[in-house]
């Protein structure tokens, strides 16, 4: 059950982050950080399908995390959630066409080994 929750949390977190990145790229870079301008940005992105899907996925991730900390130690649940960086980086490379250098892959490798040790 513990690992099923980790799987759901990591999968929904990854989906949420990737959808949010796609949605925000569709919107474009934010230059104006005044409250009124940020309000306009919020109204625009709230109608973006990718952002809405991202919020739904993040809600699933949060509730999975809530259930996970109910049945597993926090010192397990928090660091193991960093495993989402692994699929996120792979999808950033494949879907978002981001440049991922060897240092970032090294970091991902360290996280993967770390998660295995935490398990």
């Amino acid at each position: 059950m513990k690992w099923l929750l980790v799987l759901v949390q990591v999968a929904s977190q990854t989906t949420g982050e990737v959808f949010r990145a796609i949605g925000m790229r569709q919107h474009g870079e934010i230059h104006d950080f005044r409250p009124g301008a940020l309000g306009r940005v919020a109204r625009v992105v709230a109608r973006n399908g990718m952002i809405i899907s991202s919020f739904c996925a993040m809600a699933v991730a949060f509730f999975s995390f809530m259930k996970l900390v109910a049945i597993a130690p926090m010192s397990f649940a928090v660091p193991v959630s960093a495993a989402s960086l692994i699929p996120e980086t792979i999808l950033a490379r494949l879907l978002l066409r981001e440049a991922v250098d060897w240092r970032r892959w090294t970091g991902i490798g360290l996280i993967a080994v770390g998660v295995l040790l935490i398990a």
Partner: protein
Amino acid sequence: MPATSSPATEMVPGVHNDAVRNDAALRSKTRLFAAIVVLTNVAGNSALTKGMKQIGDPGNSPVALIGALFHPWVAVGVALLIAWTASHMALLSWADLSYVLPVTSIAYVLTAFAGRWLLGENISLKRWAGIVLVTAGVTVVGISSPPSTVEGNPG
């Protein structure tokens, strides 16, 4: 607002001091927000965990999970995690991801200490090693991250 003083500003009398003052203010603000990000993350996760441990396994009912949000410790945890999200987004609006990610990854270690001392969790040597490796990995990822990627457009 310039983050650092440029050679051009240093040559103009009176501007250099302002630039230095602005730089010092920006550094102080960045350190303050980084501390807030780490503390709200650790405190939020600790409060959420404490509340969920008191409630116990809510089962698979979504109603039970939503109901858990009204438990005092869970509510405090959620409020702190909202503050964490807001402060994290604010910090990223002016600071590089490559600074924010490694600096805030210390939260993984502090969370382990909080689990050990506040919640009485037993942490094996193997798990400590894993936490250190995850922290090192997040730091390396952060160091490698450019402020933004110029290529690529997912459409």
